[in-house]
């Protein structure tokens, strides 16, 4: 079964005359997809729709078999908590929590993910750190003591903890130099593969094509801007 299936998905921004129409898109489990597009082309909106943060106006959008267009906000929140890990443009680590708690934030919203993160004798936190080349003694430090590179890895660990089904990443490397970007992408993709998580990464950066994606799509080919009246 496909992880994400979108059919004639339409979303109109509040008080806007235009909306975004996605005729068809599907994502298989474990698949890694790069979506490329210039800024303002609706990349972030698309990820917000896939994660259930925004509610589509019409059409069909299924996340792991659940129809998001017909779900309450709280149900969509619960699905996101359980199935989705997100990595953002800015890192958004909470400054008042330790590294360990920042990572565990990703699991605490879902009982399943929390259980999963604790399944291997509470080892996932440590194995994630090891996989991300971080020393274990970092866990109980406040995040502001970490370097930018380390903070990025904390953000990856937060998205991956508790084995979500899909990672949604929105321009995660836009503030990085090429060297750090390459390292970040390599860690993200390899760790997602190891845990069996699918990845959708949206970026405007042409350099992204060099990484190991299963599919690379241009956003312009996928979505169209249509006037609201034309939709209904």
């Amino acid at each position, binding site marked *: 079964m496909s992880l994400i299936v979108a059919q004639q998905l339409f979303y109109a921004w*509040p008080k806007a005359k235009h909306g975004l129409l996605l005729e068809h898109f599907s994502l298989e489990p474990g698949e890694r997809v790069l979506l490329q597009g210039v800024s303002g082309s609706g990349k*972030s909106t698309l990820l*917000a729709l896939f*994660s259930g*943060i*925004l509610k589509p106006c019409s059409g069909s959008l299924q996340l792991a078999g659940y129809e998001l267009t017909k779900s309450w*906000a*709280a149900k969509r*929140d*619960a*699905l*996101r*908590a*359980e199935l*989705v890990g*997100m990595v*953002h*443009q*800015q890192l*958004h680590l*909470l*400054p*008042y*929590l330790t590294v360990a*708690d920042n990572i*565990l*934030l*990703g699991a*605490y*919203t*879902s009982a399943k993910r929390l259980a999963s993160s604790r399944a291997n004798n509470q080892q996932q936190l440590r194995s994630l750190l090891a996989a991300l080349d971080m020393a274990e003694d970092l866990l109980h430090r406040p995040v502001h003591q970490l370097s930018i590179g380390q903070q990025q890895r904390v953000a990856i660990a*937060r998205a991956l903890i508790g084995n979500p089904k899909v990672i949604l990443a*929105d321009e995660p490397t836009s503030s990085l130099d090429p060297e750090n970007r390459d390292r970040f992408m390599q860690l993200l993709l390899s760790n997602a593969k190891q845990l069996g998580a699918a990845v959708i990464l949206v970026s405007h950066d042409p350099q992204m094509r060099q990484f190991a994606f299963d599919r690379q799509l241009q956003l312009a080919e996928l979505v169209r801007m249509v006037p609201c009246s034309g939709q209904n």
Partner: protein
Amino acid sequence: MFWTKLAFKSFYFRRRQQWLTLLALTATILLWLAVSHVKDSSREHFVRSISGVDLVVGARGGGLNLLLYSVFRIGNPTNEVHWQSLQPIIDHPRVSWTVPIQLGDSYRGFRVVGTSTGFFEHIQYANRQSLRFAQGQPFVEDGDQVVLGAEVARRLNHQLGDRIIITHGLVDTSLSRHDENPFEVVGILERTGTPIDQSVHISMAALDRIHHNWQTGTYVPGSDVLGRFQPRQVTALMVGLESRLRVFELQRQINRMGPEPLMAILPGATLAELWQMMSIAEQALSVIAHLVLGLGLLAVLAQLSTGLETRRQELWLLRTLGLRPWQMLWILMLETLLLVLLAMLLAMSLLSMLSWLLQDWALLRFSILMPVYVPLLSQLQQLAWVLVLALFLTLWPALRAYKQSQQYG
């Protein structure tokens, strides 16, 4: 648990911004508590100061005034009554006992009360408790002896056997001291929490004797008169009846007595009059205190709303992680809960401290014993409602925050 911990940590992280809100809220709750504390304790003070006295008789005038100066030592007596006019009351068959009170002199800032030994026998306070001696015994009639209230002895550090000099009038100037009549301290009363603690008790005869020498305003040596003492004038007469059943009848009789115009009041009824007068001021105060409390809650709401702006990223992140609406609500309400609870605790401890510090000042300035503040159950109940209201008010910005966190990036 995790979200509770998170809310606490977030709150602590933003403590610099919370500080002023906490201060404002503490001040408003403090004001609110203080108003009701002063109200309660002044009532308590008035109520406990008089007990077991059925009638107070004095010169005709304001009943409230008579009660205030004769029992609470507030204000000054306007008129005195001749002893002969009171004789029918003292001899009245229904009267069980009488105790005269004469005011007008002071000893180092404390009122001197001329009275009889019956004072220590019949005057009661609080819930029909009799006066007790911490040390010593009553003065003998006509002796150069005084009995001190507990506060007088403590503050002036007097012991039994000390000799003190009474001042003529209420202002202590060296010119008007009755130097020639030193009095010996023969008794110190136990603390009562009433104006008796601030009084110096002396026999009517002794008081009259020192005044006798001052007839022309200056001391005339050798004019002392010996012989059987009869007080000429008194400020008030405390009356105890055989049975309280006929108290109104006797009151009417006294009010009609002649030739000197007399007045008898029932302490309880006159106190009720006082409450009625005070209730307008009390209500005004308490309305203001409630309004201020409302403003304090608005301050919390304002703080929370601006706080939400600065916390937009934080809340948005929590949403992307899949935080449910009620979890978000809990995090935001916990913040209000913390602020309000902290402010309440602070206000209560501050008021306890302040009331302890200002106790002496209130006693000296207003002759009112203000007990140290202890939280009352009724106040805690009201504060619980304030808390509920605050949480209810939080709902609105919290729901707005949830809505807003859907639209970011």
